[in-house]
């Protein structure tokens, strides 16, 4: 058959699409269980990381609980998983699998979102861990924040889809995340969030009640994204924390 004829070209294109399509479809379905499991472990690791259950040394890199034991550790430390839906609070063991992005989209359309909270116990202290989700410079950023009931930050974990390596991608470095520990979300009794600001005269972050942490050089928009993410998503839990405080 003539290689340049239209019929050959169309047949070739069709055949190529079918072959490539089936190879990719087969691969996707064969691997999807394993990929889902990896994602599940990652979520558990991130939640535990935020509440300080990790293998970090004094300084240096982020070290999660190993994947082999994460499921056991998760059920040890996370004592309760709650879902807040309007005024209703229910227990749900699968709350950590809630896709916070979908819930925020639902909220935009006027529906009541399902907001997960994870209650963790470690060394006699209680942590309330909330998920966060927002926009960085290029794509999504997200994370988890562990708070006590006065909304003082006990630890955070940030992650991103595609921030610039060396700049915005450094939000998941310890020197940035560790700055948040001890910061207050509330200013007096008002909700203030935490702002990532440049030149706040506090680069080593000694002032903890200023609702500010020092920004990353060259990552202004990612930093603004982190501020916006905190003020938007953690704000949704304001009432929950207030009710916790009122209970004493």
């Amino acid at each position, binding site marked *: 058959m003539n*290689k340049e004829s239209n019929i*050959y*070209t169309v047949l*070739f294109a069709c055949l190529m699409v079918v072959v490539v399509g089936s190879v990719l479809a087969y691969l996707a379905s064969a691997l999807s269980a394993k990929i889902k499991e990896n994602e599940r472990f990652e979520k558990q690791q991130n939640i535990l990381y935020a509440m300080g259950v990790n293998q970090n040394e004094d300084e240096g890199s982020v070290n999660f609980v190993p994947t082999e034991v994460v499921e056991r550790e998760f059920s040890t430390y996370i004592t309760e998983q709650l879902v807040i839906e309007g005024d209703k609070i229910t227990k749900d063991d699968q709350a950590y699998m809630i896709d916070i992005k979908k819930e925020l989209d639902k909220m935009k359309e006027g529906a009541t979102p399902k907001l997960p909270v994870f209650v963790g116990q470690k060394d006699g202290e209680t942590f309330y861990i909330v998920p966060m989700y927002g926009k960085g410079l290029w794509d999504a950023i997200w994370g988890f924040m562990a708070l006590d009931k006065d909304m003082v930050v006990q630890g955070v974990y940030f992650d991103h889809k595609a921030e610039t*390596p*060396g700049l915005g991608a450094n939000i998941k470095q310890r020197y940035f995340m560790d700055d948040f520990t001890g910061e207050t979300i509330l200013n007096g009794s008002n909700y203030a969030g935490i702002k990532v600001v440049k030149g706040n005269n506090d680069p080593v972050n000694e002032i903890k009640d200023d609702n500010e942490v020092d920004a990353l050089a060259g990552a202004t928009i990612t930093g603004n994204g982190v501020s916006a993410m905190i003020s938007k998503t953690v704000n949704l839990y304001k009432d929950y924390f207030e009710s916790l405080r009122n209970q004493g």
Partner: protein
Amino acid sequence: MALLSRKDSKLILDPLADNNPITIQVLGICSALAITAELKASIVMALSVLFVLGLGNVVISLMRNMIPSKIRIIVQLVVVATLVIIVDQVLKAFAYELSKTLAVFVGLIITNCIIMGRFEAFALGNGVWRSFLDGIGNAAGYGVILIIVGFFRELLGSGTLLGFPVLGNPIEKTGLYAMGYENNGFMLLSPMALIVVGILIWFQRSRNPALIEEN
């Protein structure tokens, strides 16, 4: 090289120096600017392109007598995209941490002009073995420049190499910083990558006058 004939070894060695895809052909500049702020990212990108270009050239070369010329560009694009997706999925299942590091690069690999350029210019007209060597050679030439640029940008911009502080601690003022040295934050921005690549081109051409075009 006894393993390869003279002509074959030229395929590998030429792109490393006198026919470098970045500094001579000025291809693949976009990714060279985007991801070289860190040495680690440069190395990961270099290895990914090595894999995709080596394998892609082989696939295209195998199919070269079947591809209708009217749709050859689309066919090339499909081959790159398929390879990249396969790699991405397999890594996600079996090396999840690594796949997260690579996520940023997936789009950049598919659109890397070097890959399409080598398919079009070489693999479509040459045998499998030679195409493989050509792919490896060009990817290595690309990778070498990426790693050199990444080395200088991370060292001068952040004072670290592969994340390890090599010049001391800028906040506590130890090491070089005790003497008043400051990181050049400008190095982390893309324009400085262009300037580093420019310096490399200048250096290379001044060493080898044969590379300078006549006006």
